């Protein structure tokens, strides 16, 4: 289709879609007045049943744990696929020569950025660990904390440079880490089955009241497993994409130097 035609058709279709959608949405209860019987039931029941204080995390890892297992697998397999796609297509000719690598290992950029980066890493890791382990008590959880931990890794990249990153070789040891996290969650779910209950049954005792870090039965363990997995996944993704960008930049720079 000619681009002009396509844009015209899409514009008309979008207008029609919006009108139709608004017509449908008009049937929703007023904003702020929705009543969800399932949500209310869980809100009243979860603290007594699981001794946790964060309803969302309890739903994510207990009431609707199956969704989380599926979602975690999607994350896992998708990152595996990205790694596969990006790594396999990287020819040897794309690799950088030792001279370029040596030239690159002298850091560029200001000392202030590096110092700030180094300082941030420790704090970020600590924050990430806190968010992961306290997920059932305050806002947070495995997913959120895992992403914060991965951000610590990216701070290293921002503070240092690409070659330092490559030497750390995170991709190699991140894959088993990520897989271990994914398997951990699946095994916890299976554990419920083996412990005589249903699949994903919360088979550990709910723990003390008022809630502490070990309250919630299997929920803290699920948090940790998911935290490990998300940390591994996000780090892998960042490493692979940064690898691509870094290789391109170093090659470009070395070609400029030669030419």
């Amino acid at each position, binding site marked *: 289709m000619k*681009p002009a035609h*396509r*844009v015209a*058709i*899409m*514009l008309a279709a*979008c*207008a029609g*879609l*919006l009108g139709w*959608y*608004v017509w449908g*949405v*008009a049937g*929703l209860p*007023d*904003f*702020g*007045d*929705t009543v*969800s019987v*399932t*949500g209310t039931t*869980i*809100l009243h029941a979860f*603290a007594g049943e699981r001794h946790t*204080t*964060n*309803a*969302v995390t309890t*739903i*994510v890892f207990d009431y*609707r744990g199956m*969704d*989380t297992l599926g*979602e*975690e697998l*999607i*994350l896992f397999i*998708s*990152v595996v*696929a*990205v790694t596969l*796609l*990006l790594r396999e*297509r990287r020819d040897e000719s794309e690799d950088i020569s030792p001279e370029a690598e040596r030239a690159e290992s002298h850091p560029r950029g200001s000392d202030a950025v590096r110092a700030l980066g180094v300082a941030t890493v420790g704090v970020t890791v600590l924050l990430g660990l806190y968010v992961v382990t306290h997920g059932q*008590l*305050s*806002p947070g959880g495995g*997913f959120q904390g895992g992403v914060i931990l991965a951000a610590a890794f990216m701070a290293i990249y921002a503070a240092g440079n690409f070659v330092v990153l490559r030497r750390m070789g995170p991709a190699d040891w991140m894959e088993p880490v990520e897989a271990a996290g994914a398997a951990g969650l699946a095994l916890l779910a299976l554990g419920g089955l083996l412990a005589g209950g249903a699949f994903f049954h919360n088979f550990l005792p709910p723990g003390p009241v008022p*809630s502490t870090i070990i309250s919630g039965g299997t929920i803290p363990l699920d948090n940790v497993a998911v935290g490990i997995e998300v940390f591994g996944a996000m780090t892998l*993704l960042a490493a*692979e*994409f940064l690898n*691509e960008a870094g290789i391109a930049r170093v090659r470009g720079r070395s070609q400029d130097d030669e030419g």
Partner: protein
Amino acid sequence: MSVYPYIVAGWMMVVGLFGIGRSRNLIHMILCLSVVQSSTYVLLLAVGFRRDATAPVFQGIAPWRRAVDPIVQALTLTDVVVEATVVALMLALAVDAHKRFGTLDPQDLRPQRG
């Protein structure tokens, strides 16, 4: 305007879709898809909102306080992760396309016609 937030979600959806339709760059197209996906998060969270209610986290406050719906927040969390990974996969494909064809324009990807 009692359904205004839902209309906002619809607007985001339509803007993103239009962007996909007229895009000349794969990265731009994928980010428009991201906008479309964000519209679903807005819709879900708007559906769960309750007036004069607190967050569904009862640390330090009494558990009988009125709270917003926690289920949609859990759904949004799941949805964010799922959609983000799909975007990551598509970006990897876009990187690959750039390597192979030297371009990010969908028109120049030497598509298979017919």
